[in-house]
């Protein structure tokens, strides 16, 4: 019986990793997990810190802020303030996962199950990733971006490139199309298009800012039209296309930052689901290894200890509390869906009539494919889980002197908690809603943005002014930001340069 065991002890070798990967891969196929081919890369802790610091991309362009992050991650790692992420996985085809050389064999197996089969299948099948990212092209595109930016640095100097990048990073959250789909990317096309684009873009901009009127009629019609005709949510896109004085290479850099922001957008929207899915599968797959007598008891104990600490959720009043742990929430929801499908209680049958007593695998698969965090929670957060996690809803309204408990884990509270939690994962509620509203095309070329307050939440005045400075770097004419209440009353105004 023991001769089937893959390995004992904590040392790993590439042969052993290949053995584990084969076994885990076989099990994953039995569960019909649809994955990209895997590419597993072994790196050192320092390289992990580095990749981590460069927004998790292996071949990102060079920027001081990544250096800053590198320094602080390295420091807290060395002082033992934090363990490193055990793994890093990239939504690409083939799916690149990084293993850290310092880890034990158990940890490597855990990461293989978690990243190479869990995250990998999520990347391939979730609708947001399918719709918004092109896994085939991302590595090539990053190569293109890296080369392009270093070329720009040679040609125009590090300082000039850095100031554009700084400005773009400040607006990165506003470089995302939420409704319009981007076209897929590919390296060759991108290079050719980039050449054409420089010329085309510049001609477009010139057209907009033409000061010599073509004819009287045209000039008149233009004056009556507001520009942009509708508010624009993608500020970086707007800058790329319409900023009056940017050089073509600067527009291209804006575009690069924008494309990368777009690529990461689905990850921000599916944090809970993605981690929950991966945790569910590493738990399932490693237990199957154990059931098949392929791993030892020691292996399982080490794995379970790590698993438990990954999905630990400190209570709201614990000194370790730092928000809801997406691993915990996601993992428990995924397990819960299986439970509801297999062994529903009367309560479950009332709440989930369409999922109770179904085949759990297709049910879970559908949940993974067709939702994002917000809708996933709204659909699948069960009363049982609310009770298990002892979730409660609190209302913080500045008009009242005290905080108000809106709902707790009881019959009246479930639905309210579910709604509140779902909206907590709605990105457009967390990030201030700021859009390009108006450009004074024929006069001062002022750019005006509108911030529409959500639930009266004000903008942070200092950072807002700082971001406007960055925006001014790009636009190069006065920039204004009006903060409006939801019914259109102006609350505050920000100006750069200050008025």
């Amino acid at each position, binding site marked *: 019986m023991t001769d089937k065991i893959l390995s004992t002890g904590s040392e790993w070798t590439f042969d052993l990793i*290949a053995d584990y*990967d084969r076994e885990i891969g076989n099990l994953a196929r039995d569960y019909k997990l649809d994955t990209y*081919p*895997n*590419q*597993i890369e*072994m*790196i*050192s802790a*320092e*390289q992990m810190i*580095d990749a981590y610091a*460069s927004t998790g991309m292996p071949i990102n362009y*060079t920027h*001081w802020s*990544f*250096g800053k992050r*590198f*320094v602080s991650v390295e420091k807290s790692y060395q002082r033992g303030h934090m363990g490193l992420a055990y793994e890093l996985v990239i939504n690409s085809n*083939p799916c690149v996962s990084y293993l850290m050389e310092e880890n034990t064999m158990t940890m490597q197996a855990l990461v293989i199950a978690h990243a190479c089969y869990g995250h990998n299948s999520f990347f391939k099948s979730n609708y947001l990733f399918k719709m918004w990212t092109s896994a085939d092209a991302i590595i090539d595109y990053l190569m293109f971006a890296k080369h392009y930016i270093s070329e720009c640095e040679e040609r125009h100097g*590090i300082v000039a490139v850095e100031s554009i990048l*700084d400005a773009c990073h*400040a607006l*990165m*959250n506003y470089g995302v199309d939420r409704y319009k789909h981007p076209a897929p990317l590919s390296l060759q096309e991108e290079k050719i298009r980039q050449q054409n684009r420089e010329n085309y873009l510049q001609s477009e901009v010139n057209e907009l800012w033409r000061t010599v009127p073509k004819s009287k009629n045209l000039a008149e019609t233009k004056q009556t039209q507001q520009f942009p005709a509708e508010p624009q949510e993608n500020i970086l896109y707007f800058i790329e296309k319409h900023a009056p004085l940017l050089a073509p290479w600067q527009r291209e850099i804006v575009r690069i930052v924008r494309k990368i922001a777009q690529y990461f957008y689905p990850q921000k929207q599916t944090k809970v689901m993605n981690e929950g899915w991966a945790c569910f599968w590493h738990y399932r797959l490693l237990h199957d290894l154990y059931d098949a007598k392929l791993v030892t008891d020691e292996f399982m104990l080490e794995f379970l200890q790590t698993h438990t600490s990954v999905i630990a959720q400190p*209570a*709201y*009043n*614990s000194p370790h*509390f730092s*928000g809801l742990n997406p691993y915990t929430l996601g993992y428990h929801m995924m397990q819960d869906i299986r439970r509801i499908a297999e062994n529903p209680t009367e309560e479950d049958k009332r709440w989930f009539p369409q999922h109770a007593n179904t085949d759990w695998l297709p049910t879970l698969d559908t949940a993974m494919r067709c939702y994002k965090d917000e809708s996933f929670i709204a659909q699948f957060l069960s009363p049982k889980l609310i009770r298990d996690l*002892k*979730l409660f809803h609190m*209302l*913080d*309204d*500045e008009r009242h002197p*005290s*905080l*108000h*408990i*809106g709902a*707790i884990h*009881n019959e009246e509270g479930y639905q309210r*908690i579910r709604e*509140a939690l779902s909206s*907590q994962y709605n990105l457009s509620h*967390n*990030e*201030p809603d*700021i859009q390009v509203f108006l450009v004074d095309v024929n006069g001062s070329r002022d750019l005006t943005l509108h*911030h529409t307050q959500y639930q*009266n*939440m*004000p*903008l*942070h005045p*200092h*950072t807002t002014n700082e*971001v406007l400075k960055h925006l001014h770097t790009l636009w190069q004419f006065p920039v204004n930001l009006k903060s409006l209440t939801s019914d259109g009353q102006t609350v505050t105004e920000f100006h750069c340069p200050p008025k």
Partner: protein
Amino acid sequence: MTQFIDRRSTRHKGTVNRRRFMLRYQDHLKKAVFDAVGKRSITGIDQGEQVIIPKKDIAEPMFQHTTGGMRHIVLPGNDQYITGDKIERPEQQNGQGSGAGDPSNEGEGSDDFIFELTREEFLEYYFDGLELPDLVKKELAQINTFKTIRAGYSTTGIPTNINVQRSMRQALGRKMAVNALFKRRLEAAEQNYLYLKTIDSDRLTLEQALNEIELIKKKIVTVPFIDTIDLRYNNRIKIPAPATNAVMFCVMDVSGSMDEIKKDIAKRFFILLYLFLKRSYSKIELIFIRHHTSAKEVSEQDFFYSRETGGTVVSSALELLHQTIETRYNPSAWNVYVAQASDGDNWNADTPHCTDLLRQKIIPLVQYFSYIEIMPRHHQSLWEGYAQLAAQHPNFAMQNIDQISDIYPVFRELFKRKTA
């Protein structure tokens, strides 16, 4: 099919971004380095340094909400609340409010960013662009120390250098070569003898043949066991070795007119020179000479912190300096640097003596002589005397320091890279 790639070899990728960060904040780093020097003792100076950068300077701002408005928050681990409870609003600092996570780069938290400079980076900033004059010349052209190293074997030499093993090997070879000829001839002679015997030659012929054999045997015996041409000697050659030792003389006036502030300025200056030399030389000795009317070699502690009073005779220190170089630091083996700090006070009649001493005896022996005068007001006779020297000798430099902030610029001025 899974592909495995071992990428562990390509290390230190993060350093590129780290460099970028340092480039961007070099003003902060340089200032921190400069401040740090004042706090360290001369020999303890070359360590890394923690640089604190205010958070506001490295912030990466984003549009974000601040406190206020209305928020719905869901929290885990309810242990006491029921619907309708009212809780006092906690202090804004650590309110559990922002559970939905906007980890602010900015906002209220004001922890400063701490950057660790390594020892190398610390010194790099310190000596950015500086170079001691003629350092290269001294190191590459004016090499006047040598060391002997073994360099194979030679056919000539003195008896003490005979290499026995090599010599015997030569002898053996020679003997085998010479004997080979005789042995062939001996063989031929013996065969001839046997042949003559078989055909019953007369006695005379046989005797001749035997004599022939004897003769050849003798010749074999007389081949010398060892010959002069066999001798091999260990060969040693001299190669030029650049002196890697430096001695640095700190000369300071400790007369009553030098107060604590002036001494502190002088100390910083000496530290700078020490650090700078440390980059170029593997071993540096520090000699401290203090003087008022007479000069004395002292320890670092005494040098900076003991108090003296009295008049000033600079030449006393210069004489001691010269004597020490002559007796202990032969300039062919040592690179000699002198840094003198003074407030410019000197007994008037002594100044001509000082300049003579420097011109004729000291300057020819030293790599570099730097003089700083810590004096906010007008210069006295010593300055004028030295000024003439500075004009004539490129390895003599002098500068005036008014206050503490002048040190670094003056140091740069003294040691700045000479173009061409």
